[in-house]
């Protein structure tokens, strides 16, 4: 329950930037706008009493049903959700930050959506963001060298997108 002062601090400091808070979830999470993400992270890392010095993982969840029948049944519009799992070695707290972004920039298919990079806050975010870019297709703005990390450089598409299709062939190797 130590997260509650944290939420009020965040609300006081960032106001409109904090979109949603869920303290009933298995892991309490806070949703912020992409605009304040870096400032929130910087604050969480440095604020006395919280000190989230460790960024454990950065995950992108793709919310899209490729089946129109299933898509009609859900109450969300297609979007990407970035999930930042933070923890603190100093205070042993944990927190989940969420950011929602559209699946494509300005709705143009193939144009990767952007979100500010937090590689300047935690060095470990560098590789996590490269992985998220590689597998889920998110453009991290301000990242020092955003390029693929697990897939080859000439790989096409982003495999963890729900509408991804495995290529038929790659350099003469059969795909499907």
């Amino acid at each position, binding site marked *: 329950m130590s997260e509650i002062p944290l939420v009020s601090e965040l609300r006081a400091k960032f106001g409109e930037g904090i979109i949603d808070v869920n303290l009933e*979830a*298995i*892991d309490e999470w806070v949703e912020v706008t992409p605009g304040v993400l870096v400032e929130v992270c910087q604050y969480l890392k440095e604020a006395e009493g919280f000190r989230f*010095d*460790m*960024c*454990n*993982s950065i*995950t992108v*969840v*793709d919310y899209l049903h490729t089946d129109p029948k299933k898509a009609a049944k859900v109450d969300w519009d297609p979007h990407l959700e970035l*999930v930042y*799992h933070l*923890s603190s*070695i100093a205070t*042993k707290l*944990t927190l*989940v930050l969420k950011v929602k972004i559209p699946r494509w920039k300005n709705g143009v298919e193939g144009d990767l959506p952007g979100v500010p990079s937090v590689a300047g806050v*935690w*060095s*470990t975010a*560098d*590789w*996590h963001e490269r*992985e998220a870019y590689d*597998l889920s297709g998110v453009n991290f703005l301000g990242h020092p060298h955003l390029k*693929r*990390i*697990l*897939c*080859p450089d000439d790989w096409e598409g982003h*495999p*963890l997108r729900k509408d991804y299709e495995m290529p038929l062939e790659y350099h003469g190797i059969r795909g499907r």
Partner: protein
Amino acid sequence: MATSKIDDPRVIEFDVRTDEMLINMGPQHPSTHGVLRLVLRTDGEVVSDVEPHLGYLHRCAEKIGENLTARQWIPYTDRMDYLAAMNMNLGWSLVIEKMLEYDLPERGRHLRVIISEMGRIASHLVAMGTYGLDLGSFTPFLYGFREREKILNLFEEACGARLTYSYLTPGGATADLPAGWTDKCRQFLAEFKEVVPELHTLLTTNSIFVSRTAGIGVMSAKMAIDYGCTGPVLRGSGVYHDLRFHGEERYTEMYEGYVFDVICADPETGKYPESNYEFHGDSLDYPEIPRQAILGDCWHRFYVRMLEVVQSVRLIEQAIEKYEATSGDWGKPIKLVQKLPAKEAYMETEAPRGQMGFYVVGNGDSIPWRVRARSSSFCNLSVTAPLCQGILLADIPAIVGSLDVVMGEIDR
């Protein structure tokens, strides 16, 4: 290129310009622990830049997880850190149990402590042996594998497999330990305790080993945290953090009532805490820390693993007692097509190589909407580039080896 005319030969000596050279190390290099490729930018013997290239073992296990049920994905976790597959099984099992709010019977908890600590010993033995190999010493490898073989025999008896176990599952384990297993395990521990001082004589204070590792690849505590390093790599830099003590309640309660130490040097004095553990009736005398060693260097990362092995022995001894004192159910696996609630859960456990995290998002179906594996080796490896700047070429295997990475887990 020196093109100017110089009369004095001594001037030439200082004027010789060498070209920068790009060297490919790996992906088939024996000291890169699998298929890691390092592109080194060198000037003579001095390395100015290292860029790791990963992905040679990438099979997008996370995407596969979006097409299988929680229990069906267990074998894929085996193939992540294949040197500590039991600990990978445990991490995934715990996150699914957290999501389902399932509480394991007490007997199952002790069983898991026995199995996961045995896995830690086996993994650290390989770490020790291959680190010796990296630095040109073959003997520790044989000694390490000889002991590991005995653990694998025990694992084989418990679950039928020697490398990819799929033994611990969400809900408990696939089977209870067979009759007479704990006696064999006790026998192993008694033998292993004799061997630990022997293992220390091979490398720990060996002067060649010390000069190859002490003072090399020094990582400050701040840097280790910033790069997300965990496990022995983090504790080798003097950060007192072990999820078995400091993790989530669901994980720490597994170790409730157990007595063991977190192996971590005091950053002030550089000394490791005195162990009060009775080893052969008297306390084990660990080898002295060589004076060349600096907190956070390769030698300390190695030493932390060597001491952790003893703590694991200590834990298993207690766990066997507790396991035998409890009777009843050890926890049956959940249904193969168990539906997952529309919730999400994240959990990290202390695997031998660091904090292994699993994240799962459910949508009411038995197949998860998204699974994610946060790999400890992945984060530990990300520190190589800053650590390897300005060092000698021959120190690269020493640094990469001390991080003890497993590529199966990095590439997933």
